[in-house]
């Protein structure tokens, strides 16, 4: 059910645009371009709570956009196949770790392959290859696993259990491959852009820009292309889509490729935002991705974005009052409250019956 954006969406989008515009203007006017990270330390001890909150909102929005990118595939797959894919977290991790594997100057190994070596590609090239390979893993798992299960009419609950098993297997394989330590994609400090009392890391800003472009591309794909509209038709009613002459299985294959590629890109950008990734990076945010998707409205592609922004902001701002370790719990608390008030999620719609 990727509904066309209605008024509510435009209102939310307008708000976001205004916020983004204010943000950019503030960056340009107050900040005056990139500052040197070594010399600037804007948020000093004794900063007022208001300042702290706003800084956390900025961090939260950045995290939210990246989380949305990682989660949008989860939403697409749920929408078209009904599957809650618990192995999506490993897809996110895989993108980040493969980028590290291809770009690092350290010695890397492959399990069962003797010897170690260095590939050392430039980061951007490694990231592009990692996104393509991620998409390939989506193609492969639909070909070998999910499509045969659908063909045999295995119910989505059983498929979900399969995905939990797959998630655990992949998690262990990722640890076998990369060990338990965290890996940094880049050692460059990157610097910060400051505006008044606030700042954002240049690496983070770049990640957010890339993620926003990718999300925009997904939205345009769903709304403006024939394939995208067919994808929405399948999430509405797969049987009718088939009766209209749409080859449902090929479009679901495409959705798997897209979802896995987007998750991989999300993983890479989150690793830049987070200063590194480990074998369990994706698993740690899996529940947050589910929360974002559910919060926004299950199966609504734009719901993932709205939900992720809420999750990001709430989890970051909550660190002002509660221990940082608890911040994800507060985001999941918000999920419960929103669902009590709006069971269909923020953007979810109720259909007229008959």
């Amino acid at each position, binding site marked *: 059910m990727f509904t*066309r954006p209605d008024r509510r969406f435009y209102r939310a989008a307008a708000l976001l645009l205004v916020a983004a515009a204010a943000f950019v203007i503030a960056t340009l006017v107050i900040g005056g371009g990139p500052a040197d990270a070594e010399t600037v330390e804007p948020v000093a001890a004794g900063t007022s709570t208001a300042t702290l909150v706003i800084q956390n909102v900025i961090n939260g929005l950045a995290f939210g956009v990246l989380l949305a990118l990682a989660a949008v595939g989860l939403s697409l797959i749920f929408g078209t196949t009904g599957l809650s894919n618990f192995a999506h977290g490993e897809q996110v991790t895989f993108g980040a770790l493969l980028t590290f594997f291809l770009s690092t100057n350290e010695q890397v190994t492959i399990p069962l392959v003797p010897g170690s070596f260095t590939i050392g590609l430039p980061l951007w090239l490694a990231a592009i290859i990692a996104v393509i390979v991620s998409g390939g893993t989506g193609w492969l798992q639909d070909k070998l696993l999910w499509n045969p299960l659908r063909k045999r009419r295995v119910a989505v609950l059983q498929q979900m259990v399969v995905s939990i098993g797959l998630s655990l297997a992949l998690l262990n394989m990722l640890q076998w491959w990369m060990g338990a330590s965290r890996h940094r994609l880049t050692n460059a400090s990157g610097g910060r852009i400051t505006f008044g009392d606030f700042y954002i890391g240049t690496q983070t800003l770049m990640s957010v820009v890339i993620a926003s472009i990718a999300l925009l591309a997904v939205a345009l794909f769903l709304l403006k292309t024939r394939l995208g509209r067919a994808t929405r038709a399948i999430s509405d009613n797969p049987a009718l889509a088939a009766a209209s*002459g749409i080859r449902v299985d090929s479009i679901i294959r495409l959705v798997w490729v897209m979802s896995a590629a987007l998750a991989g890109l999300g993983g890479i950008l989150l690793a830049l935002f987070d200063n590194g990734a480990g074998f369990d990076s994706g698993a740690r945010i899996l529940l947050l991705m589910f929360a974002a998707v559910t919060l926004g409205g299950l199966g609504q592609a734009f719901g993932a974005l709205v939900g992720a922004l809420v999750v990001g902001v709430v989890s970051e701002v909550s660190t002002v009052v509660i221990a940082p370790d608890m911040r994800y719990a507060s985001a999941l608390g918000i999920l419960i409250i929103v669902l009590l008030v709006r069971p269909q999620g923020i953007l979810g*719609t109720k259909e007229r019956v008959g």
Partner: protein
Amino acid sequence: MTAATQDVLITADDVWAGYIPGVSILNGCSLEVKKGELIGIIGPNGAGKSTFLKALFGLVPVTEGKFVLDGDDITNLRADQLVKRGIGFVPQTNNVFPSLTILENLEMGAYQRPQAFKERLDVIGDLFPVLIERKNQRAGSLSGGERQMVAMARALMMDPKVLLLDEPSAGLSPARQDETFVRTRDINKHGVTVIMVEQNARRCLQICDRGYVLDQGTAAYTATGQELLKDPKVIELYLGTLGA
């Protein structure tokens, strides 16, 4: 081949089909549809009326026998292949994409022939002008009767040779039911062969060229709609009274 057999569009030849292996709903069903005909299929609940349409459209597996379209065996083909060969199917329920606009619903109908979309849209616009006026409205916000229109229009976008309608009048108000039957007749007059399955046997027989009475998964008998309306057995079993 005689002229009569050349005119045959669809043949069901001793078709056995069912949802579960070993439990068949259609038990050796045979019937014949000629080009340009409007065929009504009536029968008691559980006679296999809807199953017949679904088996023809590949949604229920056929275990024995075959369906032939224009001389080609089309038994158990995939839905998209049947659409390509010129079969349009309108399911009884859930027959629109609720979150898509009317225009997008129609675009999905022409999915295999996007280059013909504009041209077909004009044709459909003549049949259903109201749909074009409201083309940007989401189908999920429409009433049952309006959805039925969208569903028929979607199925007609590929310019099918034959249109399969599964109980198009179900759940509609009497006025809307009438409209649906009149529209079906219109579509048929435009040259589209129509096979409709109906609960409303009287109205269905009034508009169709020929009716089939299905009973226990076989085509019990066939005659013109007018003949069946006067047939004592049909009156007793399906029409209740002689009626109007």
